[in-house]
């Protein structure tokens, strides 16, 4: 177990190093940022001075090492546009994004798990059919379109919820629904197939034939085991939701990291873009590490399976 933990930690560090290379490369793709920083009428000499000041004349590897050592100390430099530390900006918008993502995921789980399980228990019933259609439609609906439709119907048409902004629980409903719909569909499908698989297992049949009550078989034996694949995908799902939050936040004018990122990209605020990508990737790696460890705890067989591969 300890060896596994050490190996996973080392892997995570390597992944974050890789992320730093890509994030660093992103800035260099754009060429010289000095022109963006200085006013149009800046003299050639000023440009040269700023280049030297920013260390852009140094060899690339040295710039990367400098970038990395700053990043390790959680320093991503000043945002070009706002002239404050990029990390501070992110940390001030991160709670809004986490709130939206968590609400989306919670909503998805709350709907998907019971629906998926019921669909599996009543296989080929009307409920199962409705569930399958819902899953298909949910997976085919782009988040930006669903968001617009929700605004059209529930904000403009019925006036039940606000169309934009972050102001209390009511304003969370529409964006969380738009964001969570795709995950809801995926998770419902997974819950259904997981449950079907477990229900076909020998121990379930044995328990049934031994006269254990159906309720106990379903909720005590089957459900616990069907939950394991769900736990693993939640980490990945969280990453997908963080990506989806970029678009959801744009549509609903939700003041989170996603909107900050879109804004930063369009104003060529590359330190801020770098910092956002780095922070979100780190978040993703940490959450997946936690999920993996939780998973091995839930199902001790996993470590050996992974080693065997």
């Amino acid at each position: 177990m300890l060896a596994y933990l050490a190996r996973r930690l080392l892997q995570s560090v390597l992944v974050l190093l890789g992320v730093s290379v890509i994030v660093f490369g992103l800035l260099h793709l754009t060429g010289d940022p000095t022109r963006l920083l200085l006013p149009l009428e800046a003299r050639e000499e000023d440009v040269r001075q700023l280049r030297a000041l920013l260390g852009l004349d140094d060899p690339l590897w040295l710039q990367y090492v400098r970038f990395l050592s700053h990043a390790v100390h959680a320093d991503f430099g000043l945002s070009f546009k706002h002239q404050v530390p990029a990390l501070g900006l992110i940390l001030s918008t991160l709670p809004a994004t986490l709130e939206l993502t968590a609400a989306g995921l919670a909503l998805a789980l709350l709907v998907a798990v019971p629906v998926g399980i019921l669909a599996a228990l009543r296989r080929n019933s009307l409920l199962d059919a409705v569930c399958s259609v819902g899953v298909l439609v949910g997976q085919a609906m782009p988040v930006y379109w669903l968001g617009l439709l929700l605004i059209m119907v529930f904000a403009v048409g019925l006036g039940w919820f606000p169309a934009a902004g972050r102001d209390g629980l009511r304003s969370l409903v529409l964006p969380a629904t738009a964001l969570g719909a795709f995950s809801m569909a995926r998770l419902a499908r997974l819950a259904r197939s997981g449950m079907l698989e477990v229900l076909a297992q020998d121990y379930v049949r044995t328990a049934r034939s031994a006269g254990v009550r159906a309720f106990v078989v379903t909720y005590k034996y089957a459900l616990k085991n069907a939950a394991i694949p769900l736990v693993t995908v939640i980490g990945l799902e969280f990453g997908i939701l963080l990506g989806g939050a970029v678009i959801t936040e744009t549509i609903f004018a939700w003041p989170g990291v996603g909107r900050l990122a879109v804004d930063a990209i369009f104003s060529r605020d590359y330190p801020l873009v770098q910092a956002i990508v780095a922070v979100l990737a780190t978040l993703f790696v940490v959450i997946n590490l936690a999920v993996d460890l939780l998973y091995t705890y839930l199902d001790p067989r996993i470590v050996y399976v992974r080693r065997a591969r």
Partner: protein
Amino acid sequence: MTDAATLATALPVRSRARRRVSFRAVFGITVLLAMGGAALLAPQLAPWDPARQMLLKRLRPPAWEARGLREHPLGTDHLGRDILSRILYGGRISLAVSLSSVALAATLGVTLGLCAGFFGGRADAIIMRVVDVFLAIPYILLAMGVVFALGPSLLNVILVMGATRWVQFARIVRADVLSIREREFVVGARARGNRALRLLVRHVLPNALTPIIVVATLELAFMIIYESALSFLGLGVQPPTPTWGWMLADGRNYIATAWWLATFPGLAIMLTVLAVNLLGDWLRDRLDPRLTV
């Protein structure tokens, strides 16, 4: 004669089981053919030039509504452009870009997955860590950053979409190759002194094709959504070329007054994605039920 008789009685049972038409396949293929045909034949089918602005007929609702015009079945947008024609033309870009980027992602991913699975050891470790890196980075932000930096041309959009979505292919191919390379025919071919490249192309790759096809179909659905998301955010293929994502972005400003602007292009995206997904599901169940993608 007896043989023929047994055959005759035996056949119907088997063929009935085989010929049972799958709703998913029929629906998926029909919608896809219709969408693909509409996109290919857009110049012949579209009633109007998709870029033609008719300012006197701005924001007209679909034909069946009170202010609708018969010559614009799905209405007009804020510049008086015909929505139906724009959807038809938009499909060309959406489908062409998505297909090309799936092809690119598959080429990248399959090559890397083959190498990782076949050579193992250090190559495997490095490639799989790169896969992890790409999984960790929010691809939509990466794509937006790169497209914005390089300029949103058709080629750049395809390159970026392909380069950020090869991971699925690499993972599935690697897993498959790990088991294929131990099979007798590969071991035998190796023992006969075939070189690695020949082994890979002649013996390993053909046996890994099934999951590749399935993943490619499901990824196509994803790419359609991905492409219109980039367009929606203003970083797709640039106007005046109509794309579904752009039309949605345009319609966003009119959701309070003109619902048809955002509804129809979204419907086009959803139908296409739904059809591709159904086809992918069906292919997976049919070809390789073990796959869990």
